[in-house]
């Protein structure tokens, strides 16, 4: 039964990683850049949600919606100001800029919201479901997180498969020049991608802080890096890959904590990543790039 408990908390943590990883992977797929500021957008989303619920006493759902809107705008603004001017620059320049944006957001949060930890109120309350006479307990946060992850996954799949914006995104991800020559507005498509990714980050922020309620300006960085790892693990650029990578990473992390060592859990997670990449360099579901000879 303890095994099952661990598995469920692993899936729950993994679902949060997966939601964040989806943002990473979509932006990477379309803009071909690693948006290292993504983790800090999560933190901004969590703070907005925190203030909406705790200070302004808005209903949790309204708080999350508000956080999503703010983060979507933030994502679009970051892309326009920091990344768009560098679109034809070497990828290293964009990477460094993304790290810069990440630190900027963290320090802006320090100024605005002080380094004092905030206690985040769970967006779904503290209830839990007990099964098998109390042997297996699943908190509401866990259930909501897993359901949200599945719903987001379905939404993204339907969106990219069957809408014109989704098709435009996939076209841009393959060949921006050709897409533009077919009349696609590449800038708008990239903006939509950043908006979706950042909106997901806001949801992830609210769920993350509901499960782990201490909110500080660096809250987003470690989950951000883990989710990036998850995206690479599953094959960066692939939507199902982000889900699979996120879930596996969460489960491995919880099992490593439970059965091996709490201190070593992160080391174990990254060791598994290295082994997977040695065997499958493009990640689990990543596309192997065939060189034409």
């Amino acid at each position, binding site marked *: 039964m303890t095994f099952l408990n661990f598995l469920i908390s692993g899936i729950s943590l993994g679902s949060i990683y997966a939601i964040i990883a989806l943002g990473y992977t979509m932006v990477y797929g379309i803009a071909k850049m690693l948006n290292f500021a993504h983790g800090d957008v999560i933190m901004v989303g969590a703070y907005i949600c925190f203030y909406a619920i705790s200070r302004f006493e808005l209903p949790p759902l309204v708080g999350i919606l508000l956080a999503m809107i703010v983060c979507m705008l933030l994502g679009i603004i970051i892309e326009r100001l920091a990344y768009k001017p560098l679109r034809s620059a070497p990828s290293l320049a964009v990477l460094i800029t993304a790290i810069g944006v990440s630190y900027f957001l963290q320090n802006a949060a320090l100024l605005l919201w002080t380094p004092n930890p905030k206690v985040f109120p769970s967006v779904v309350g503290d209830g839990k479901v007990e099964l098998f006479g109390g042997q297996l307990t699943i908190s509401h946060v866990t259930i909501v997180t897993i359901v949200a992850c599945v719903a987001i996954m379905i939404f993204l799949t339907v969106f990219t498969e069957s809408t*014109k914006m989704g098709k*435009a995104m*996939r076209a841009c991800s*393959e*060949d921006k020049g050709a897409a533009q020559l*077919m009349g696609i507005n590449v800038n708008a498509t990239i903006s939509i991608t950043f908006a979706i990714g950042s909106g997901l980050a806001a949801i992830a922020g609210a769920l993350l802080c509901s499960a782990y309620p201490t909110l500080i300006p660096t809250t987003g960085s470690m989950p951000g890096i883990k989710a990036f790892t998850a995206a690479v693990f599953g094959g960066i650029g692939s939507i199902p890959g982000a889900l699979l990578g996120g879930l596996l990473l969460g489960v491995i992390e919880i099992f490593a904590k439970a059965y091996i060592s709490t201190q070593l859990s992160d080391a174990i997670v990254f060791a598994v990543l290295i082994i997977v990449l040695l065997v499958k360099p493009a990640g689990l579901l990543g*596309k192997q790039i065939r060189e034409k000879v």
Partner: protein
Amino acid sequence: MFPKLVPVPSKNMIPERDIDKPLVLECINLGITFGGLQAVENLDLAMGQTEITGLIGPNGAGKTTVFNLLTKVYQPTTGTILLNGKDIQGMDTAHVNREGIARTFQNIRLFSDLTVEENVKVGMDAQMHYNMLSSLLRLPGYWKEEKAAHERALELLSIFNMADLAGVKAGSLPYGAQRRLEIIRALATNPRLLLLDEPAAGMNPSETAELMENIRKIRDTFQIAILLIEHDMNLVMNICEGICVLNFGRVIAKGTPSEIQANPAVIEAYLGKKKEA
């Protein structure tokens, strides 16, 4: 067989049948330099609304550069491009496409992970207007436009007998089919002027013959102008009404196929100078 060419105000020649209609394309003194290299210089070109024109010249003459100028992939250093009488200066590539120029590529650039039908639908993007909300809520507007797009995609595909391949990934199509799909995708954007960059490259003689028929068929069905770059002289001399020869970025000859074939400057550019005996 070929129509008589008549002069238009810019001193270019277009087929007689198009003389009463506005020009689809007019380039005046078009030029671009890359660093110190004059890649295209003083290019004057006019096209009637249903004209098929060939752009030929030795490798490196600047033919693809002309396409890149017309589609605003490159910004011209000098000159003007008028599309249906409208100056396209200041427009970006996507905007020029919506104004009526579509193209194919020398090295195929299909969206290979998308299906054949999706590739065609990408070309229709600018003509579909439903917004994010109606696509998420699946409002009637979404279904109506998606259904219309689906039908039109199949209609376009059936021109080249490709309708049965609609669900296949573009990347897994055989080479000839990929070339045809590129043309269909370009047509899906509703162009007034279609640019074909070496459409017959890599094709065998029977495929080339079929392509010639298809190019004429496209012109007759859609009543559009077609500008094509091609090295296959048989194709060029058979279907182009006007031919423009470039060498080192300059126009060295313009005229009907028979005029071009007899032009000494063209022969020299292709075969080298005749040695004085």
